[in-house]
C-alpha cells in the first residue's frame, strides 16, 4: 500500500471554527490532491499540488485553502467551517501525471 497517512481520521467541530486536515506521504510523489466525497456527488476535487509551494484550485475550492511547504505534507484548511463542509475528505498522491492516484483512508469531518 502507498504510504499515505491522513490525520485526524475523525473530527467533530462547530460552525465557524478553523479546521486543518493533514496528509502525509512517504512516497516522495510529486502530485498531491484533496477530494471530498458526498452521497449523490461522488468524489470532487478541492485543491491539488504539483510540487512544493505549487498548488491550484479544483472544482469545489471555495471555503478551502491548502499549503505544501514540504514534499511529504499537504494541508487542507477550512478557515471558518460551515455545515455544508461536513463530508469525508480524501487525500491522494501520484508520482507522474500519467500514473493512477493512490488514496489515503479518509478523514470524516462533522461540522455542527
Amino acid at each position, binding site marked *: 500500500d502507498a504510504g499515505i497517512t491522513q490525520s485526524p481520521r475523525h473530527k467533530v467541530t462547530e460552525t465557524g471554527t478553523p479546521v486543518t486536515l493533514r496528509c502525509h506521504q512517504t512516497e516522495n510523489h510529486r*502530485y498531491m490532491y484533496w477530494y471530498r466525497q458526498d452521497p449523490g456527488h461522488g468524489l470532487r476535487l478541492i485543491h491539488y499540488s504539483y510540487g512544493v509551494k505549487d498548488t*491550484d484550485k479544483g472544482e469545489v475550492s471555495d471555503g478551502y485553502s491548502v499549503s505544501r511547504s514540504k514534499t511529504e505534507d499537504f494541508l487542507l484548511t477550512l478557515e471558518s467551517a460551515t455545515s455544508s463542509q461536513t463530508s469525508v475528505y480524501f487525500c491522494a498522491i501520484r508520482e507522474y501525471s500519467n500514473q493512477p492516484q493512490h488514496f489515503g483512508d479518509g478523514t470524516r469531518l462533522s461540522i455542527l
Partner: protein
Amino acid sequence: TQLLEQSPQFLSIQEGENLTVYCNSSSVFSSLQWYRQEPGEGPVLLVTVVTGGEVKKLKRLTFQFGDARKDSSLHITAAQPGDTGLYLCAGVVNAGNNRKLIWGLGTSLGVNP
C-alpha cells in the same frame, strides 16, 4: 462540463450471479480507470484501460473500453460476497501540464451469501 454517468447506482445480487456496471460519457478520454472502495477506506485502483476496444481481465472481473473511448464496462462473473463495495470509474483527460480525472458517482454493489 464533462460528465461520466455510471449505472446502476445500486445493485444487490445473490452470490454466484453475474453483473455489469456501465460508465458512459459524451467526452473522449485518453484512458479510463476503475477503482473499488470499501467502507472506511479510500478507493483502490483495479485497472486502467487505454486503447479503444481494449479488454482487460482481473480474475472474475472483465473491463472493456469502448471503441470511441467514451464509455467502459465492468463485468463480474459469479459474484462473491468479497466483491461487495463501491465501484468507481474515472475518465482521464489532458488539462495543460496535469491530467484531470472525471469521476462517476459510483455503483454500490452488495453480494449476498
